[in-house]
């Protein structure tokens, strides 16, 4: 223990600044991938719930294929595969594209669970007031689905933050590849990779605490009032829905969200 601390005392000043700068790139990578995933995921979720069978099937296939294959394989296809057929992306863009496409598939299922948790009477009431289906979705259903989407959505964000480390396989200059470079210079793999792990933990743990906070009110909504109906019934379903209704590979996104509160993926 003392020896480890001595090593850090000697080298921390040299290692920490480049690693922290690289961690900023990691955060950028994660934020952009999540942004792509949030937008594309909503499109896929709405397609999955469309009246048109073709759209439903396309969205279903997208979700199954993406969730059934490793993120690293997807990164290789977008970076090396596209380059092989003449489309050259730089490694940062390729990482954002691959991770965004990956996030969208998980996010779509989270959105769908959220939207389905809103009682259909809400939508019907909005339609009967003369709103178009799009406006009813935008102003009535989605705002209510949001509180249900947020906890598993944050869990997904943590998973993406960790998955950005895979971008080091295509030399995107993020935390893991910077750590790899430093190991090449100093040949101190244990100390540097442990330091990188601690930086990842420092980024992920606050998000994990946030999930626990977000989950609390949702769970309070489940409590049955003595002798009365369930309050805030709209908040009851989603935890079950994400875990059980999803058709197939419940990877990181929804699995165990109901059974394991505060689970970080």
């Amino acid at each position, binding site marked *: 223990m003392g020896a480890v601390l001595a090593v850090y005392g000697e080298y921390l000043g040299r290692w920490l600044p480049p690693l922290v700068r690289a961690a900023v790139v990691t955060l950028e990578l994660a934020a952009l991938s999540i942004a792509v995933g949030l937008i594309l995921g909503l499109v896929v979720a709405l397609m999955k719930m469309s009246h048109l069978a073709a759209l439903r099937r396309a969205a279903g296939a997208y979700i*199954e294929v993406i969730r059934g294959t490793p993120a690293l394989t997807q990164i290789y296809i977008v970076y090396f595969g596209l380059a092989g057929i003449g489309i050259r992306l730089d490694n940062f863009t390729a990482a954002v594209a691959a991770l965004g496409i990956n996030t969208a598939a998980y996010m779509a299922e989270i959105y769908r669970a959220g939207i389905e948790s809103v009682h259909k009477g809400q939508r019907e009431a909005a339609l009967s007031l003369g709103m178009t289906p799009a406006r009813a979705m935008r102003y009535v259903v989605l705002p209510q689905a949001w509180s249900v989407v947020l906890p598993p959505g944050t869990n997904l964000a943590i998973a993406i933050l960790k998955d950005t480390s895979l971008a080091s396989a295509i030399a995107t200059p993020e935390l893991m590849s910077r750590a790899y470079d430093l190991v090449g210079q100093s040949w101190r793999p244990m100390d540097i990779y442990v330091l990188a792990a601690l930086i990842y933990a420092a980024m992920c743990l606050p998000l994990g605490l946030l999930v626990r906070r977000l989950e609390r009110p949702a769970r309070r909504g489940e409590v049955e009032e003595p002798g009365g109906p369930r309050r805030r019934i709209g908040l009851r379903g989603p935890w079950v829905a994400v875990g059980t209704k999803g058709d197939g590979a419940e990877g990181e996104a929804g699995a165990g969200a109901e059974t394991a509160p505060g689970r970080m993926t």
Partner: protein
Amino acid sequence: MTSDAFAFWRIFFARLPVFLPVLLKGALTTVEITLASLVVAIVLGLLLALLRHARIPILSGLATAYVDLLRAVPVLTTLFIIYFGLAYMGIRLSSFAAAITGLGLLGAAYMAEIHRAGIESIHRGQREAALSLGMTPATAMRYVVLPQAFRVVIPPTANYAIGLLKDTAVVSTVAAPELLFAAKTLVSQTLLPMQIYLLAALVYLSLSLPLARLAHYVEVRLSRGG
């Protein structure tokens, strides 16, 4: 340009009988790594969950810290610590052993949460009844609580196994001869990245989709109480 692209596809399909066996051999290693690390994760995860549950002052705190910390660290980082870090300290593991150790240790943190949720889902009256019958806490856990928790634990464990199967791809970075590494090797020999990585993705899909169907089936069966 387009004729070039088609030429590559033609070469790819002509060589498919050569490529596919190489990838399938890699897929076998992928399955081996998945199963071995799943066993490590389940056993170690149960130990961690029991330690947390037992509320032994220091040990329970350590188990909680282990679970929280490891879930906040990427698979790749854990793997590098175990493969490169330990080697530097004189403990040389093969890439295969490092993969199972890394994925197993990391998986234990996730499985501990799944086991904990299972144990906590059993009404405490069950345990109290067992204790009032004269069972020791350990016997009550072994014969009353855990068998019932088992049903709750199976669906998320199956889902976790699918995640684990995909996580094994990361092991290719330390040159364990699994599916993605086999694909990488083929790409460096043939310069057909798109075709070969798509084929690799297809092989992953043919492993994960049946597993997902099975997990879904088991989940429905168990929730029905069958």
